[in-house]
């Protein structure tokens, strides 16, 4: 299909309009985070700052325990990525490469848990985590990821299924056990899928707000997402600091997205379609 000139102009106009409406707010966020407090008040609608005040970032970082929050966020991200990758790849192996009674039924249950609203399990989960002494520790946000999550298991299973059974058979004849096949053959062949799951979990943990809200009470344990929300209530009249803090919190995710874009978009299309 080819477009004629008029159609092309129309297409570009629509694409540009959509780009401005969707990406515009991010540009506004970034440039406004560099304005002086006075300029934010007097001239909030100009895109570019008259004076680029990079000190806003320094001020935002010192206005809250930024690096403590960042450390907590990174610990939660790291721990939950490890937990998710281990537990989910193991379960995905069981659901794709092994035959065992109840497998299909349990796979149905797995899909069912994806559709279950969190409301139904929230209160007992909270009490359970409190009972085992994890309340108000970073562990409350990490330990549950070692018990698998349906979305990641599903994504990995879809990938494992595409690996030819002959490879496993050959390894079995060579005397490799199931763990050996999983660890030395399936996992190394599944690096793209494992990377996708790790990426999604990292971003989910970075962004998570309701988990910390529910399970953490001590400021020393707050991750950035929660610390930032606390910051909003105490600095609501200092828009330049709020925008600078929000930018600092967002920037790593935007950079990560640019670096991993293909993995990212493919992962979404896979779980939605197949």
């Amino acid at each position, binding site marked *: 299909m080819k477009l004629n000139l008029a159609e092309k102009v129309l297409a570009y106009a629509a694409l540009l309009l959509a780009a401005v409406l969707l990406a515009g707010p991010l540009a506004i966020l970034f440039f406004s985070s560099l304005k002086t407090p006075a300029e934010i008040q007097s001239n909030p609608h100009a895109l570019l700052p008259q004076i680029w005040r990079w000190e806003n970032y320094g001020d935002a970082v010192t206005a809250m325990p930024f690096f403590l929050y960042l450390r907590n966020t990174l610990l939660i991200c790291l721990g939950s990525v490890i937990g998710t990758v281990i537990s989910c790849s193991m379960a995905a192996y069981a659901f794709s490469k092994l035959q065992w009674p109840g497998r299909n039924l349990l796979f149905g249950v797995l899909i069912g848990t994806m559709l279950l609203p969190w409301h139904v399990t929230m209160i007992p989960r909270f009490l359970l985590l409190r009972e085992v002494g994890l309340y108000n520790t970073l562990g409350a946000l990490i330990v549950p990821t070692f018990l698998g999550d349906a979305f990641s298991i599903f994504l990995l299973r879809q990938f494992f299924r595409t690996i030819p059974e002959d490879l496993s058979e050959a390894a079995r004849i060579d005397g490799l056990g199931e763990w050996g096949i999983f660890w030395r053959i399936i996992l190394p062949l599944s690096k793209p899928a494992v990377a996708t799951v790790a990426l999604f979990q990292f971003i989910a943990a970075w962004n998570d707000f309701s988990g910390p809200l529910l399970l953490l009470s001590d400021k020393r344990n707050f991750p950035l997402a929660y610390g930032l929300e606390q910051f909003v209530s105490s600095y609501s009249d200092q828009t330049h600091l709020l925008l600078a803090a929000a930018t600092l919190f967002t920037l790593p995710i935007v950079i990560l997205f640019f670096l991993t874009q293909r993995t990212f978009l493919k992962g*979404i299309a896979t779980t939605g379609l197949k």
Partner: protein
Amino acid sequence: MSSTRNRIAGYAFASPWLGGLVLLYLFPFAASLYWSFCRYDLINPPQWIGGENYTRLADEIATGTGFGQALANTAYYAAVGVPLSILLGITLAVLLSLPVRGQAIFRTLFFLPSVIPVVAASILWMWLLDPKEGIVNYGLASIGLGTPGWLQSSGDMFSTFWRTGTFAPGSKDALVLMSLWGVGNFMVIYLAALGDVPKSLYEAAQLDGAGAMRRFLHITLPMLTPIIFFNLVMGLIQSVQAFTQIYIVSEGRGSPAGSTMMISLQLFLSAFQHLDMGYASAVAWLLFVLLLVATLLLFRTSRRWVYYGG
């Protein structure tokens, strides 16, 4: 021999998830069902009170207070937001599949808002939608659409228009707008589906003299119906589950005037502010049943309009 080994290995590999299924799903599922028939304040042990929590819910639905108000707000959020997300998702995907240069850049720009952390996005939109200083109202005023109250107004767009004939989006409309900003996930799925539509169908239709609009309505749209259905179901579930942005823009109170008090927030406050775990569990279970019924109804109607020919 190898099959027994396979069997044991199956359970062994699935065991972390099976443990999670019991601890994080089955136990909580049963416990919250039981507690929904109890009075439970975390300090004293749960005390059986029969269906009292549920009769209270029925009262609140009848009077439009408490859960009734939350249900109405959530229903509005889903009923306005989900159809718009379908419309916008398809429109953006179609734009991105037009044969012009630079599509990779546009795709990135369109998707970018979807990766922005909800906390940061909420802070940004609270500022952009500020009735006096916000750039959105600045833009609206310059084209003669006034300066609506957005997050600071408890009214909603449709009932205000019905009563006064003016365009004045309120707090829930602002939340819908914020959710539409993150439509990229669905857009990517539509885009992938558009790529799967056989080119020969379009070529044949073009030879038969079908214009762009007819090709869209009779080829593209039917091929997209499975994704529209997926979007409908997931969009409904996501609207009901939305919490973070609502909590942040309403300072955890559902303000202004309870207009953003949605089921998630009401449940959270009942449980962790009023320590009314029994009532909160009943809210959760009623919500679960309502959602299940709605999903099943959607599945039933899907036979009539979803095309699984491909």
